[in-house]
Every structure is written in structure tokens, then in C-alpha cells.
């Protein structure tokens, strides 16, 4: 369980990102978001992350893994076919770009390729995009 301070920081980070995304939508659709709306969306996002985390954990454990992979994320997105389509497309893009990066790294040097800091890995898992990097 994280310390209460980091909890607040996470919430603030989510709130900031939600604000940025809402601004983009606002410019695109030519509407205004009230501060309360943005706060509500960020709170919803935060709680939804809780559900996502639990479900991803369950899916990974179901497949007898301790690491969440893109397969688990795809399973999470199965409920909505359009979302699943989008996520599958994104994950393919990421895997192909990862392959390119790995090849570049191999060419550059094999010595520089060390273990990543563990904090970065955890962040990657929650972002669900870089989960197959580690």
C-alpha cells in the first residue's frame, strides 16, 4: 500500500492529464468543460484504474503469470469491440516499434543494455503499452 502522500500526487497527476485531454476535446468540439466536470472525470478515471488494476492482476494470475502483458490488456478491452480493435491496433504498432528499437540497441552496444529501474517498469505496466518491453 502506497503512502498517503504519493496517493495525492497520483491523483494530482491524473487530474492534470485529464485537464489537458479535456482541453484538447474542448478545442476540437468547441465546447467548455467546467472545473467540476474535469474533477469528476479525473475521479472516475482514478477509480476505474482501480478496477483495471484488479482485473489485469486477475487475468495475469489466471494465465499463471506475475507480469501483466498486452494479452491481458486486450482481454480487458474485450467488452467493447471497437475498443478492442483500437487496442489491438495500438499494441501491434508498439510491438513493431519495440522490435526496431531493440535492433537499434543491439547494433549500438550490448553493454549499455542493463536492467531498467524497477519504478519505471511498474509505470510501464499501468500504462499498459510498454508492458512487453521488460
Amino acid at each position, binding site marked *: 500500500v502506497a503512502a498517503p502522500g504519493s496517493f495525492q500526487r497520483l491523483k494530482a497527476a491524473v487530474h492534470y492529464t485529464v485537464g489537458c485531454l479535456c482541453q484538447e476535446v474542448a478545442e476540437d468540439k468547441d465546447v467548455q468543460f467546467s472545473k467540476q466536470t474535469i474533477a469528476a472525470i479525473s475521479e472516475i478515471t482514478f477509480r476505474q484504474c482501480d478496477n483495471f488494476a484488479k482485473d489485469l492482476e486477475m487475468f495475469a494470475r*489466471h*494465465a*499463471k503469470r506475475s507480469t501483466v502483458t498486452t494479452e491481458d490488456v486486450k482481454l480487458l478491452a474485450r467488452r467493447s469491440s471497437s475498443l478492442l480493435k483500437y487496442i489491438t491496433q495500438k499494441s501491434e504498432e508498439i510491438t513493431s516499434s519495440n522490435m526496431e528499437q531493440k535492433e537499434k540497441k543491439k547494433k549500438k552496444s550490448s553493454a549499455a543494455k542493463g536492467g531498467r529501474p524497477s519504478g519505471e517498469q511498474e509505470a510501464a505496466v499501468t500504462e499498459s503499452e510498454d508492458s512487453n518491453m521488460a
Partner: protein
Amino acid sequence: QRSPLRAKPVPKSSAASQRKIREPEVASSLIKKIFSHYVKMPVARDAFKIVEKCSERYFKQLSSDLEAYTNHAGRKTVEMADLEVLMRRQGLVTDKMPLYVLIERYLPLEYRKLLIPVAVSGNKVIPCK
């Protein structure tokens, strides 16, 4: 006397072939019974028709979900664990409501016996795993 008896099987066989075309489904009387047991109020006939349709869709969705979960675990046989994942995802099984409690609450005794191991006399556990 023989001719009418022989004539009878012909329409019967045609009826049977018609039945074969229909997809297998849960008996509508059973659906009706279960539904009316839980709603505890009068239900119109049209509403039952809709409930039947819903249960058909439910089974379709259920099978595709179970297929996904089974493939995800690298198996080809649906197991109890897959169903538990499904029910967790549906919000039926939670940390506060384990699967065994649901089995105890909603299944009749003879089915419950098959799913929940019970210790009997002679230091035995049925069903043995």
C-alpha cells in the same frame, strides 16, 4: 387398421427434422420458472419472450467469453477457474462474495455436493480431487 398406424410416423419424422434445425436452448418453462421466482410479481407474456431472448444472447456472450479466458490460460478445455474469472468480471464473485457462497446459496443440494468438497465419516472427503 394398419394403414393409419403406418401413416402416423411420417408427420412425426418431419416434426423431428424441424426440431433439429432449431438451436439448442434452455427450456422456456424453466426460464419462466426461474425468472418469476426472483421477480415475485406478475409478468406479461411478452416480457417472458424478451427474457428468453436475453438468456439466449447471454449464453452466446458467455461462450465467447469463456473461450477467450480458456485460450488466455493456454488451455482448450474450459475449467472451473475460467468460470470464476468470468463471474468475477461480471461482478458476481467479489472479495466479499466468494464463489463457494454463491454455490451454497443458489444451487440445489445435489449439485452443491459435486462442487464443494464435504468431509464425511471415515476421514473421507467427497468428491476426492
